[in-house]
């Protein structure tokens, strides 16, 4: 049998897991591993400029491909810098395996140089974690880590590796397990047949149904199945922020995003529905508004692979625990069987009335039936930037975003027809995610258009990655919606703090982003007039092999609407613009 050191076993295991990229940063505790990678490993390594960026890039790689992202960082600050990215992946259920170095076993607990209790620090934000105690366990631990990260409800797994576990002169027989069987971990494979039948009957009895689909549909590879079921039934579909792309946005049955900044027609349909089919969504507080007022007339069917998501905040009438893919297959079969028996189901007259109502809502306040934002024809509105981005990329780009107003504008105005195209930190809301994420996506899909929609606040949280983009030639487009404010903070201050803008502006301290981009070897462009917007966007995307930083000056006073009325509002209670609210 082949004899390998711990470091060599890691290198070989990554090859056998078909890992495409390792995102990482070297340091003392992982030097044995880096030496093993250097000597003999087919997997390329991407050297970031900050460990947080390694985790975001790996995370976005995972979101864009469905495969696990892989991160390698050193102990102490390397590990703690990775924590924000691990938490980001955890909140959005993204498969990721993080190798963190650790001080030598005999130094653990002695406050050694660059020692930190990584298992302790990461524990609340990992799906699982391991510390290697015997080097010969490495192959099994790595196999388990990939298995746990990618199955069931996916999530990040940390492997903490004391430096002495990777010593080059200590060799062990290497055999990589083909499969893994854990008595304490066996994700469910099918949903309960009785519950699925109950759900199918309830769906067919619905007069005002809505399908509420979340990120779980994308993670579970069930977008086509969901689309099939929705179209079989002629039911309206709304997606969560994480679910955008799970149902084709340009289809007639799509209501847009729901929730705090959701579409009027989506939130109204949810509130007035009689049956909600929730698929791979978790009734997050940014969706439900006040839970006690949530959709008072609705019976709720909830499909989720994670039982803890079911009836956590909103009680499910028909809970179904299982992978969305197999559950939807079974559900569609049940629906078809029931319809064969009774062709009058579902009640098409009731559905026609429901669609009539929805179309009325759409015509009244829908974001896609007319431009709802004001414009003086000179200042660029942020919504227009996304519209332009959508036109120029023909709706087919991978869009990453940071966190704030720009994120909501992107979610509202870029119509995602395919899953895996919209890459954002939905759960944790991590500023600084967008640029490294775009880098990870571009490496995964080098021929695709990849744009990072961001703002001057977020982009500066990981701006150092412009250097990584130079090194690995990732010609992404950065769309900076520049309003000279932390826009979402400012919006809340406008609405709830009588316009007192505490610490939400940088005054005159912003860098010249054009020069900054150029300093890193990229192209920078400034756009200040609406008439130049489309041309600049086209020019940027025409430069296929250049990273282009588009610094676009937008109306600094604009807010994101609709916006849920809070506190104590229901789904239907929304601000529609600065002056007008529902009810």
């Amino acid at each position, binding site marked *: 049998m082949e004899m390998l050191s711990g470091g060599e076993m890691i290198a070989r295991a990554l090859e056998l897991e078909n890992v495409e990229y390792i995102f990482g940063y070297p340091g003392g505790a992982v030097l044995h591993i880096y030496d093993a990678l250097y000597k003999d490993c087919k997997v390329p390594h991407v050297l970031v400029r900050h460990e947080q960026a390694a985790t975001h890039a790996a995370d976005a790689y995972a979101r864009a491909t469905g495969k696990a992202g892989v991160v390698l960082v050193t102990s102490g600050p390397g590990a703690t810098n990775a924590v924000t990215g691990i938490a980001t992946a955890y909140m959005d259920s993204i498969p990721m395996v993080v190798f963190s170095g650790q001080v030598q076993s005999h130094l653990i607990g002695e406050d050694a140089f660059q020692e930190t209790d990584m298992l302790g620090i990461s*524990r609340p934000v990992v*799906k699982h974690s391991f510390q290697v105690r015997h080097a010969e366990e490495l192959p099994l631990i790595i196999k388990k880590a990939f298995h*746990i990260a990618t199955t069931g409800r996916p999530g990040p797994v940390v492997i903490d590796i004391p430096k002495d576990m990777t010593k080059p002169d200590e060799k062990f027989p290497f055999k990589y397990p083909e499969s893994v069987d854990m*008595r*304490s971990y066996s994700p469910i494979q099918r949903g309960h047949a009785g519950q699925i039948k109950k759900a199918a009957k309830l769906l067919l009895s619905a007069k005002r149904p809505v399908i509420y689909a979340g990120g779980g549909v994308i993670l579970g590879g069930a977008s086509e199945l969901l689309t099939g079921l929705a179209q079989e039934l002629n039911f309206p579909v709304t997606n969560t922020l994480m679910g955008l792309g799970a149902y084709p946005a340009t289809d007639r049955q799509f209501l847009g995003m729901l929730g705090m900044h959701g579409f009027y027609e989506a939130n109204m349909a949810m509130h007035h529905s009689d049956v909600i089919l929730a698929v791979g969504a978790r009734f997050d507080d940014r969706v439900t508004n006040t839970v006690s007022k949530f959709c008072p007339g609705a019976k709720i069917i909830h499909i989720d692979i*994670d*039982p*803890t998501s079911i009836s956590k905040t909103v009680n499910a009438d028909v809970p179904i625990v299982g992978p969305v893919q197999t559950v939807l297959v079974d559900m569609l079969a049940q629906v078809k069987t029931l319809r064969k028996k009774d062709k009058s189901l579902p009640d098409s007259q009731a559905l026609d009335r429901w669609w009539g109502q929805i179309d009325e809502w759409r015509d009244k306040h829908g974001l896609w039936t007319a431009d709802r934002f004001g414009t003086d024809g000179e200042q660029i509105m942020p919504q227009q930037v996304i519209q332009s981005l959508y036109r120029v990329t023909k709706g087919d780009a991978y869009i990453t975003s940071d966190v704030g107003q720009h994120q909501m504008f992107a979610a509202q105005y870029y119509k995602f027809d395919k899953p895996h195209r919209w890459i954002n930190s939905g759960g944790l809301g991590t500023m600084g995610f967008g640029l490294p994420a775009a880098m990870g996506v571009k490496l995964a899909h080098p021929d695709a258009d990849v744009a990072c929609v961001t703002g001057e606040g977020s982009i500066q949280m990981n701006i150092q990655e412009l250097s990584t983009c130079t090194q690995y030639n990732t010609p992404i487009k950065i769309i900076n919606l520049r309003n000279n404010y932390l826009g979402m903070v400012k919006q809340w201050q406008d609405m709830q703090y009588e316009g007192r803008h505490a610490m939400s502006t940088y005054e005159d301290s912003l860098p010249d982003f054009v020069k900054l981009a150029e300093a890193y070897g990229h192209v920078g462009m400034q756009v200040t007039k609406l008439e130049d917007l489309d041309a600049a966007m086209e020019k940027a995307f025409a430069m296929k092999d250049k990273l282009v930083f588009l610094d676009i000056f937008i109306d600094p006073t604009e807010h994101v609407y609709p916006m849920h009325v809070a506190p104590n509002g229901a789904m239907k209670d929304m601000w529609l613009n600065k002056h007008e609210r529902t009810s």
Partner: protein
Amino acid sequence: MRRIISILMENEPGALSRVVGLFSQRGYNIDTLNVAATEDPTLSRLTVTTVGDDRVIEQITKQLNKLVDVVKLVDLSEGTHVERDLMLVKVRAEGSVRDEIRRITEIFRGQIVDVGPQVFTIQLTGAAEKLDAFLASMEEGSILEVVRSGVVGISRGEKVLRL
């Protein structure tokens, strides 16, 4: 409502901190906690008593089950069960109260496991309320030290918690 949740988990380093961390992370209460290896050295058994309404308890059991190190668990309070808490109490015992303490200890079926000229150490086993009642029956100020194991429990009858 008070619940007794009994957990079989992998006897791995860090497993206990995952369980305890889960409770603090999600704002659940731990009233008592007991953990020790079982007859199978690869498994530990952890018993935790907690208080919460049905919704909270359902979340607690689901969240615990989700931990990769947790193999199996049961809410003992859902069925009939035996529960025990072990207590050692050191009390001041001088002069005439020595007889009184001895009598009370007998009534509670406890044992005096250590005797000094001025103190008794008493061992008591039973359900938590019984131990509370014993402590209440001691004269005010006489209790010097109390240590309790936390509740352990097992279901009555044929039902077993094992792999």
